């Protein structure tokens, strides 16, 4: 009787039930987030696991296990023998197959060396090899040396950073003009700008390549960097949308104090637009870091200028198919963008807070 009153009292307590409900909702949301994050991270996990696999396991084995496993071996009388999971009266035991036979085979138990050779009835082909986890971290060193990774890394960084500076300078200026100045036919100009997004890149590819080949820029970084100094419709549109949300009163106050258009841009617009500017810079940096097609066609035959995305291809062609080295190189290439992303996110959050407080 007493127990029932106790439980009733607990259940009717509003504090307890609200807390419980909050905990339940929180736990459900977290669990759901974990499941979704897990699904999204699966390819990354596969990549990381493949980066530490042995060549045999990736290339030659038709039924490659997901984990970096290798069949175990043990030495018996100076020779190496493969380990198998052998079912015996004492359960499954890992034993080395010494003498193969169709009807019965002889095994050696490394845990029980005094027993010598143990006869076993049955076909050894039906047995499962005993795998053990053997991560091959030396893949990273091999990939580093074969690709000349520092040079690739420097190339990628140079292309990405110069392109990022170019795209920021030009896109900010163009977006500022579209957001603030009364230009005749501005709407038509803007629709033409959006039209360049509608036009797929494949359509403009061949004319662009022919143009760069005619002016002799192929085989250099110029076609990868210079176009970004002439703005890009996506970034202009994004920045323009952001600049339009900034109140005009601040510009006007600066103008009354004698600021010209560039002074207004530098001292009023840009400090308020940091989140959008960082987003654009980050998008461009990651785009340039992963860009494969443009460097491939413009830097063909110039391996000393190629970025990582193209340089990693030597493991598909020059050294035969070596997926584990491709993944190891890609994993090394991911480190810098990830670090930059986390730092940028910090600044990004700070930028949001600053604009929120200032208004």
């Amino acid at each position, binding site marked *: 009787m007493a127990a029932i009153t106790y439980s009733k009292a607990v259940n009717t307590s509003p504090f307890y039930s609200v807390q419980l409900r909050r905990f339940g909702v929180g736990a459900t949301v977290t669990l759901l987030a974990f499941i979704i994050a897990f699904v999204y991270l699966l390819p990354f996990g596969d990549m990381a696991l493949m980066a530490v696999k042995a060549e045999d396991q990736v290339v030659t084995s038709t039924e490659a296990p997901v984990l970096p496993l290798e069949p175990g071996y043990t030495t018996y009388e100076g020779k190496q023998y493969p380990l198998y999971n052998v079912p015996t009266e004492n359960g499954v035991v890992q034993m080395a197959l010494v003498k193969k036979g169709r009807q019965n085979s002889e095994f050696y138990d490394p845990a029980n060396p005094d027993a010598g050779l143990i006869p076993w009835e049955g076909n050894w082909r039906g047995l499962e090899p005993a795998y053990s986890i053997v991560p091959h971290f030396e893949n990273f060193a091999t990939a580093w040396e074969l690709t000349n990774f520092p040079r690739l890394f420097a190339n990628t960084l140079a292309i990405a950073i110069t392109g990022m500076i170019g795209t920021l300078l030009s896109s900010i200026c163009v977006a500022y003009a579209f957001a603030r100045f009364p230009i005749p036919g501005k709407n038509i100009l*803007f*629709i033409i700008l959006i039209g360049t*997004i*509608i036009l797929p890149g494949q*359509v403009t590819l061949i004319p662009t390549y022919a143009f760069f080949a005619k002016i002799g820029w192929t085989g250099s970084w110029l076609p990868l960097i210079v176009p970004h100094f002439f703005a890009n419709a996506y970034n202009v549109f994004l920045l323009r*949308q*952001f600049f*339009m949300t900034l109140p005009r009163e601040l510009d006007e106050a600066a103008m009354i104090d004698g600021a010209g258009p560039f002074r207004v841009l530098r001292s009023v617009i840009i400090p308020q637009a940091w989140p959008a500017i960082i987003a654009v810079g980050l998008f461009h940096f990651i785009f340039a870091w992963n860009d494969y097609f443009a460097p491939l066609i413009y830097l063909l035959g110039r391996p000393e200028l190629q970025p990582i995305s193209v340089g990693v291809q030597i493991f598909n062609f020059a050294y035969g198919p070596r997926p584990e080295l491709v993944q190891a190189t890609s994993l090394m290439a991911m480190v810098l963008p990830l670090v930059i992303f986390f730092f940028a996110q910090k600044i990004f959050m700070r930028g949001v807070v600053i604009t929120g407080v200032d208004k």
Partner: protein
Amino acid sequence: MISPVIFYNLVLSVIGVLQYFIVPYIVTRGTGAPGNSAYFFNMHLYKTAFTFFDMGYGATQAWLIFIIALTLTIFLFATARRWVYYASGD
């Protein structure tokens, strides 16, 4: 307050969806199977131009999808005046 960003995403996704090609092309291996349920306009364009090598008709189709996308974009820009709020006026 966030309508400029919504508008940005709306315009870009309308254009992006009209160019939807890579995913159905890879998933269905260019067939649009089952029963053309994953057969998008750009796949038809690609088939006309690069499987049947009817470049003229393929280019016409490309122009058609370009004009449709442009019309939709202009339409979106026209409606934007009603629902997109910019703090700077305009």
